[in-house]
């Protein structure tokens, strides 16, 4: 061993490869923001969200759109949409919103305001379904996976039973019970019945993590079960939970709109995207825009949330499934 430090080369950064230490969260964020699909999804979702909540305002907050979603008016140009996105030099009528960008229904209601109201309710219901079902599913999965024994068998049999019931069928019955109590209560109830897939995933994670050495070490020093679950195991399953929460949101919006479509979801005077489609379905031939706009918004919301979920999955679990050739 030499004490001559004069000749010691700086070992860091050979060929310009700087090594930076990053926390787990920084790694995940970096991977997420490098995922093109996820960024597209995030931008699309934020756009729809901001458009829906600022345009007609929410609750006491006023919006920048001047027409209400409830009132009717005089029908201009048979209620055709006035939105134009083709610039004049391409032969269109220029980029402008016009008086009624999404057109009007047969009573002269402004369809833009109506669609925005539907989008607000659908987004809120979907987010609430996602939150509630993830919470319930996580609790059930964690209890079953950590404690094993009779708790696990009871909870997993319950999950098996719930999986047997088609979600739309039990959702319709729940909607029949809760539909009159407003969309928020409906969302809560729907969340309570759609936790099965989250519970199974979380249970699987807990089953494998509880056998790991760090859990054994924690148990050996007498850590309480609650602390082990919340401080030791839960942070390691966070990725799975967040990803399944986004998927629950996207299936939540499809469930809510389908239920509203068959008449067991959001009821008048409240409106939602699915209910708009149901209301104006018969006008498909004469006023097709009444059918198109809510559908496009449902797809935009579900698609953007799915892309965000995919990006999060890749960010949390970067093991790429590349085939070795």
């Amino acid at each position, binding site marked *: 061993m030499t004490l001559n430090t004069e000749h010691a080369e700086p070992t860091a950064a050979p060929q310009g490869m700087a090594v930076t230490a990053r926390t787990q969260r920084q790694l995940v964020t970096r991977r997420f923001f490098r995922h093109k*699909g996820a960024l597209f999804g995030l931008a699309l979702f934020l756009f729809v969200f901001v458009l829906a909540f600022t345009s007609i305002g929410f609750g006491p907050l006023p919006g920048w759109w001047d027409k209400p979603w409830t009132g009717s008016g005089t029908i201009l140009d048979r209620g055709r949409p006035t939105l134009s996105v083709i610039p004049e030099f391409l032969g269109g009528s220029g980029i402008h919103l016009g008086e009624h960008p999404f057109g009007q229904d047969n009573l002269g209601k402004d369809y833009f305001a109506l669609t925005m109201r539907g989008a607000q309710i659908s987004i809120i219901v979907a987010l609430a379904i996602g939150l509630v079902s993830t919470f319930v599913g996580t609790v059930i999965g964690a209890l079953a996976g950590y404690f094993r024994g009779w708790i696990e068998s009871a909870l997993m*049999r319950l999950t*098996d*039973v*719930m*999986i*047997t*019931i*088609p*979600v*739309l*069928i*039990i959702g*319709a*019955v*729940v909607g*029949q*019970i809760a539909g009159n109590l407003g969309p928020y209560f409906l969302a809560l109830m729907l969340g309570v019945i759609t936790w099965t897939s989250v519970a199974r995933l979380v249970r699987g994670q807990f089953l494998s993590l509880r056998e790991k050495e760090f859990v054994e070490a924690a148990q050996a020093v007498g850590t309480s079960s609650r602390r082990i679950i919340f401080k030791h195991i839960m942070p390691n399953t966070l990725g799975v939970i967040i990803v399944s929460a986004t998927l629950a949101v*996207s299936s939540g919006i*499809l469930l809510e*709109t*389908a239920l509203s*479509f*068959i*008449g*067991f979801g959001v009821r008048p005077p409240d409106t939602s995207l*699915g209910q708009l*489609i*149901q209301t104006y*379905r018969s006008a*498909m*031939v004469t006023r097709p825009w009444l*059918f198109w706009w809510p*559908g496009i918004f*449902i*797809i935009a919301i*579900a*698609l953007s949330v*799915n*892309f965000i979920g*995919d990006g999060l999955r890749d960010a949390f679990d970067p093991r790429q*499934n*590349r*085939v*070795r050739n």
Partner: protein
Amino acid sequence: MLAFIARRLAISSLVLLAATFIMFVLVALSGDPLADLREQSTPQAQAQMAARIKALRLDVPIPVRYFGWLTDLFRGDLGVDKSGHAVSSQLALATTATLQLVVIATLLGAFIGIMIGVVSALRQYSSFDHGITFAAFVCFSLPVFWVATMLKQYMAIEFNDWLRDPVIPLWVIGLVAVFAGLVWASIYKGRWKGKLTTFAIGFAVTAVVLYALSASHWFADPGLGFPFILVVSLAAAAGASTLVAGWENLQPMYAALASAGVGALLYQPLQPVLSDANLLSILGLALLTIVVSWVLGHTLGGLLRRQAIPLAVFSGLLTGGLIFVDRILQAWHSYTVSVRNRPVATIGSETPNYSGDFWHVSLDSAMHLLLPTLALILIGLAGHSRYSRASMLEVMNQDYVRTARAKGLPERTVIIKHAFRNGMIPITTILALDFAGVFSGAVVTEHVFGWRGLGAMFTKSLKEVDPTPVMGCFLVAGAAIVIWNMVADIAYAYLDPRIRLS
């Protein structure tokens, strides 16, 4: 294995029992079945109310009511609805329509989805794979009811209008051909020269076929014909045996070709038999096909009987299926005339008061099934293709696949025998779980297409707060799902011995 099946059977019935209990309580809480009578002030209302309370056991607590319902069920009595009609007779009609829809959609969706998924796994990160991934995301986000309404408008109404003068415009032929060429070129793996050739061939074949169909007014009176059946069945037999058995040992291929050839040559002699067919004779013919193909596979298969027999049976059934389709299409012309030139149906599961021979009735229900099935397939396709892609990729990364390649097996053997067979094992569970989802979709599609199936019966009774029919519908759906799950579990245990031994 028997013990496993017995255990699984017991668990399944308990699960169904618990599910009916949950549903019963929820349905009982969903409203007051007497509401419509309470509003009436006629003197009969009191008597009617008393009768309904007695029939629906509304005077006892819900759990007691459930046991009453269950006891009746074990006696084979599904109870009565609000107006006193027996539920079982309504249920019988609704069940056939819905189960037809659900089973066909599940099987077709799974088959197409798995094919797409496997191809995109084998061509990972190709433009085909990226395209399929994107399409799957879009399909995941599509609301069923929206797709169904769109199909009704654009596939049915406008397609029917088009059928009056079935000429495909040249620009449509061009677009479709370019698209087909691009798809084939993106599946092709290799240098750009090969890709270009693939594109050219795909483009040319599609364009020529479409042009020929359009020019000969094929869509006005479609049919397959003997030469087509012969060529396609022989080609399919050869293709399937190339995939499964390869060119090293030709006995399985001989068996498959023989089975397909015998089937196709029977085309002409079968026509008189088929002209007054019914469901039983068709099933009998299918059984006969299986037996003959089995014998052919057994005699021609030599040492490779275990491959030859399934191949021969597959080829025989495929040929039989083609002949069946051909015979059904022979009824097309008179059928379209009888439904006023609007063959693609949008309402219901059959034309009301339609009468005709077996082929016309079959064609009628096929045309009614077309759109709802298409809507359900489109939704299910995404899931199946994603799962089979993921599962296939996982298997392709296993060490035993590398070993198989390392010992010099041809790529076909590695993929079909080592990877595909193991990759499909987890798909059985997905198929089982997905079945409940298809039922959910069926409720919505029935609403759009005005089917009088389980879904329509369910929504109508639930809206009218009529608990017994709701429970009847759920019982059928739940039983179908539980049985399907059980079959999938048994298949899983059969395919993967680790499951049944643990």
